[in-house]
């Protein structure tokens, strides 16, 4: 392909990527090193508020932003602060003290480290489960009678179609308080169960939910891959006396390896940004994730304050985390790619 034609083809998507991915990334990167604050002044104000029968008036000293007379907007100052926002998110000194004195609980009291702990655990535990369950479903469907395949594929795809936040809310409602599944469990085990009263049950539900939700995606990809397995190789393996397990181990899995790497890549990127489960399960008392932490910094409180700088820092840290997780897989892909080209 001529270079000019190539540019015409990729140009539009390159432009959109620059506009919607690169530009925001640069702006977040810059925002994580600067803080924009309103200029404030202290004034004494008398506030009269409504009671039921009569007003109550109080005089308080308030800190309020200065408003520019001409533009009518709040006067702000922007300052470059170096690594300050990162320090506020990571709290390196406190974290180091906790690590040095083997104080696990102390480390977990720092939001970032607690979020990192859960996010990494969540990512690494769901990864093999998603690949394993996806492959199992694919093999099962592949071996099922032709007439059954259509319905089975349809049913197993359903979890993937549900919007994540809706899915997690449904699970929450099934289990919270006297939800019907909690009732069922209580009747079965004959004891009182509160699924949302301790961290480990919530984490278990989250892991279960994510695997249930994402396994169909892995299944579809693997199922497509299974259709391309070389039948001659399989048959000769059978003639050589290879068992079902041997065939899976030495023929099918090596054949599917590029797909496994692909799914692992997608899943690592997705699950490191775990967020819907925290919101859906209202889990923030027990468990938080890095993405939730960024969201929490960014959300305005009643007085309209947002912690933009810390949110930016936390977002950059999340991105760095994903890149670190992806490096081994990317190196593998790169090696294969180079190996294949000659």
């Amino acid at each position, binding site marked *: 392909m001529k270079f000019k034609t190539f540019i015409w083809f990729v140009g539009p998507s390159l432009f959109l990527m620059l506009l919607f991915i690169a530009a925001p990334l640069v702006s977040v990167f810059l925002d994580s090193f600067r*803080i924009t*604050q*309103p*200029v*404030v002044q202290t004034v004494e*104000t*008398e*506030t*009269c*508020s*409504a*009671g*039921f*029968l*009569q*007003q*109550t*008036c*109080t005089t*308080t*000293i*308030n*800190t*309020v*932003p200065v*408003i520019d007379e001409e533009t*009518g*907007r*709040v006067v702000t*100052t922007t300052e470059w602060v170096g690594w300050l*926002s990162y320090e*506020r998110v990571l709290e390196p000194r406190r974290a180091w003290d906790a690590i040095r004195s083997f104080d696990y*609980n102390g480390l*977990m*009291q720092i*939001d970032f480290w607690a979020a990192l702990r859960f996010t990494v655990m969540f990512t690494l535990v769901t990864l093999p489960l998603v690949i394993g369950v996806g492959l199992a479903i694919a093999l099962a469907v592949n071996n099922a009678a032709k007439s059954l395949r259509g319905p089975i594929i349809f049913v197993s795809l359903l979890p993937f179609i549900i919007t994540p936040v809706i899915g997690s809310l449904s699970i929450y409602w099934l289990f*919270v*308080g*006297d939800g019907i599944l909690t009732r069922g469990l209580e009747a079965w085990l004959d004891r009182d169960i*509160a*699924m*949302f*009263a*301790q*961290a480990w049950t919530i984490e278990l539900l989250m892991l279960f939910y994510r695997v249930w939700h994402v396994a169909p995606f892995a299944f579809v990809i693997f199922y497509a891959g299974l259709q391309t397995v070389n039948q001659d190789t399989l048959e000769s393996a059978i003639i050589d006396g290879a068992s079902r397990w041997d065939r899976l181990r030495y023929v099918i899995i090596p054949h599917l390896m590029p797909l496994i790497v692909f799914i692992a890549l997608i899943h690592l990127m997705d699950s490191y940004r775990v967020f819907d489960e925290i*919101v859906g399960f*209202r889990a*923030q*008392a*027990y468990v938080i994730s890095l993405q939730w932490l960024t969201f929490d910094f960014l*959300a*305005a*409180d*009643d*007085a*309209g*304050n947002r*912690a933009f*700088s*810390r949110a930016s820092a936390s977002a950059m840290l999340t991105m760095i985390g994903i890149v670190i997780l992806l490096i081994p897989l990317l190196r593998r892909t790169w090696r294969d790619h180079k190996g294949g080209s000659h």
Partner: protein
Amino acid sequence: MFVKRLALAGAVSLAATTAYADGHATCSFENETEVTMLSAAFEAWVAVTDAMVACGNFEPELDQEFRTKQPEGFAANPSLYQLGGVSNGTITPLLNAGTIRPLDDLIEAYGENLTPNQLIQIDGQTMAVAMMVNTQHMMYRSDIFADLGLEVPTAWEDVLAAAAAIQEAGVVDYPLGATMASGWNLAQDFNNMFVGFGGTFVNDDNTPNVNSEAGLAALDMMMRMTEYMDPEFLVSDSTYVQQQFQQGRIAMANLWASRAAAMNNAEESQVVGLIATSAAPLAMEGGAPATTLWWDGIVVAANISDAEAENAFRLAMEGINPATVEAAPDAAIWLIPGYEPNDMSAGAIATATADPAPPSYPSTTQMGLMHTALGNELAAFFTGDVSAEEALAAVEASYTVAAQEAGLLE
């Protein structure tokens, strides 16, 4: 997050709104100019905006996300909304940015139905017109209290004693309910108890002041309450507590007045007529009831022409006139003339008129930061990970960083 907004507005199930749909037949003037309004979506706002729609050319936007949209919407020039529905918690960003206008002239011209109590004044200027009050107060199962021969508790120590007696009798799953979902709700429950013990959140120099006697006493009391509560209390928001009541699973709770009407909604409640209300209990002897007072009301944008503002205000007055109260008498504890308190509002009114009276929720930038810090850090105390002192120290540390980032502290 959703939960926090719902609770903030003291929202009631929207299911009941249809009941008020036919209450807006008349309007005293024909509205010629386009008017828009952004407010919360709970029952009282539905009643008010329904009345305003009757005047024509009015588009209300009832949205529980209103507080994130309002500051930016009003900062635009011209403002995206002429009118806004706010509470004492959410008026702060608008006041700070100067995007709402003083209403004194307009009140003089069109406010003949308003009582002085409805005027929210900052340094003598009226910045908002309140239409209702809301507060968290005691709701209890009158039948259980009568059966067991219990007195209605007036102090939190009595509440715990009553809870023990109810637990003993085993008539409900859990004697107590509380809006202690981590985040906004948990922080608000702490606020209630903290002011009940006479605490002040922030010093005059913006440094935090919750790691104090009052803070420790408040956490101690809340921890003792949890012994009588559903173990899932950290996900228990206002709707959750309301449903616990409706399904007969709890016997007492300090709950929002705006939730009272739902208790007698036969479509969802199994305890119609069995819930009574009383003043919020005292945390300490001689103190104010351990709760805060809230109002909801209307503001007018600054970035619009005077003529538009006049028209919008006139329309707003149609919304909060006695006819609205007549059409929806139980939708809120109205401040509008013509409101007749019913049985369910007795508790809220007793709370608001107590002597000493509970404070209004402090509407300041510092309080916004403090509320977030409390909501994020206190949960660790209730999960048993840290002690009360450690939790309050974490709150102060978290507040300090946020205040530094917001430019309030050096």
